[in-house]
């Protein structure tokens, strides 16, 4: 009901421009997947050749499937553990808290390459070995700082009295979280989960070190494919992934509001 149509409209236009910026490479990627030329030369020679090639490429498809599985599991674990830790940081004041918060930096500050090498060595030494399980182990660790930092940022705006109120009504700590704290941090949680998913789904380095031959993920396939030839097949599968996730998320959004109330 704002009367100031001017500024609001300007804002929407701006939003649209930013989205355009975000989608430039995505569009290029999608368009190129329909270009017959292997080296993305222009003008475009429309063709479905790379989709055909893709349908026969079980390796890439399997890798895509693995990626989704690993990313979903990672997201579930990382967002749960990370949110729990963020809530503890919000609720309690205790010795060592700052140290714990500082410890979130190494996983994001040290290049993944080094973390990956270190993980490989350590997992080998500890008998954890490689494989999808090892990837999940690694991905969760990388996603945790994102989740904790993002959820904490949201919690800064939370009124502790709401938790107090719920407790006075007899809610157990778990119930407080479930009915009061969580609904408030839901937007942060969702953002964190999306981050976690993205971190895992797009994670190359760690996966690369932790993949066993024959069982790899999409990014690993893409990276290793580079040497041979970065075929638009990869554009094709990336396009499919994007379209798929768009439909999925838009479907979810229809039935679930996570922009918060108000």
């Amino acid at each position, binding site marked *: 009901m704002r009367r100031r149509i001017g500024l609001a409209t300007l804002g929407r236009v701006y939003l649209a421009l930013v989205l355009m910026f975000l989608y430039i490479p995505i569009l290029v990627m999608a368009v190129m997947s329909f270009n017959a030329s292997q*080296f*993305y030369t222009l003008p475009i020679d429309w063709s479905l050749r790379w989709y055909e090639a893709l349908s026969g490429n079980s390796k890439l498809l399997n890798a895509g499937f693995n990626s989704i599985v690993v990313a979903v599991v990672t997201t579930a674990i990382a967002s749960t553990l990370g949110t729990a830790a963020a809530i503890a940081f919000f609720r309690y004041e205790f010795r060592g808290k700052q140290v714990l918060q500082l410890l979130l930096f190494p996983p994001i500050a040290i290049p993944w390459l080094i973390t990956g090498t270190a993980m490989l*060595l350590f997992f*080998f030494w500890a008998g954890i070995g490689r494989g999808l399980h090892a990837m999940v182990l690694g991905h969760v660790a990388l996603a945790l700082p994102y989740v904790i930092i993002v959820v904490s940022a949201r919690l800064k705006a939370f009124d502790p009295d709401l938790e107090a109120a719920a407790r006075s009504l007899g809610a157990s700590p778990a119930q407080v979280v479930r009915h009061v704290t969580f609904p408030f941090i839901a937007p942060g949680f969702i953002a964190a989960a999306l981050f976690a998913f993205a971190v895992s789904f797009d994670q190359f380095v760690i996966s690369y070190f932790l993949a066993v*031959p*024959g069982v790899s993920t999409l990014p690993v396939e893409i990276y*290793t494919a580079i040497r041979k030839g970065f075929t638009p097949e990869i554009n094709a599968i990336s396009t499919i992934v994007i379209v798929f996730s768009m439909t999925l998320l838009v479907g979810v959004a229809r039935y679930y509001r996570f922009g918060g109330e108000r």
Partner: protein
Amino acid sequence: DTIRVLNWQGYGTDEDWSVEAFEKKTGHEVVHDYFNSEQEMLTKLRTNPGTYDVVLINSAYTPQAAEEGLIEPIDTSTMENVEDLAPDLRNSPYLVIDGKTYGVAWVWGVTSYAINTNDFETAPTSIEELWSPKHEGKVGWRDDAVEAVQIAAIATGQKINDPSDFDAIREKLRALKPQIRTFWTSENEWNQYMSSGEFELSTYWSGSASRSKNNFGLPVEFVIPKEGAIGWLDGLSIAKDAPHKEAAKQFIDWMIDPEFYVKWDTDVGAPASANTKAIGELAEDAFNRQVMGKAAESGKLQFMGPIDDTVRQKMLELWQETKTYYQN
């Protein structure tokens, strides 16, 4: 059995038709795992003992792998095609250590540069072409310390495996500053840059150049300059405690089989085979038969050998320093 091969992706061993043919012939299946750098390959061998059967190792690294116990000596007596390998390659001191064969010579190639024939009327003959002001901002260069230093070593007339005058190399590399368009890291990238006209000429590998030409139809020609070029030899080795040694040996044997090689080189594009019989079966005008053959004879090639860790570190630092210098 299912054998596990560790190699660069798209480097011969994983050609679908070849794997199929091998399976039909021997009943063994082939699974691949890939690496993106030699260091990675070594790391994978170290951390996965008993996983791999066949591994491709640049002969410059074979002694190190052998010394670390990552690979096993190979009894080549049962391999049919070994006899046809060029003797100097087969008995390269990098592959045969203390009389034991740690790697079977597979293919060899040259690192030098390739040109976009559209930009040249006549092919250049000198390595100095890379430094020519004519190509300012149009030169491609691989972002690899050892290769960069070695090319500069050739341009300054030094030994590639242990250059003596690093200052000269530094100067030579710094002089490249105006020339370089960008660095490339993979064959695919190279092809893209070439096809989109970013490069007029660029450092490259002989085998890849023939792939670019044959497989992708790019207007590319490989140059072996008169000052010399870097030669390299890739061998196939058997990993320590390989689970399927026999099958591995059969696979290596298949890899040096002329039947495989001729198809690989003509249909896809390949480096030069170490198997003289295989080279002989190529078409008369094949690059690997003509140019490479001559290059091999001319003695212009300096083969890559093991590089001392301290020298390697020095090369890397020099290169990193140079790259820092390149920046505006």
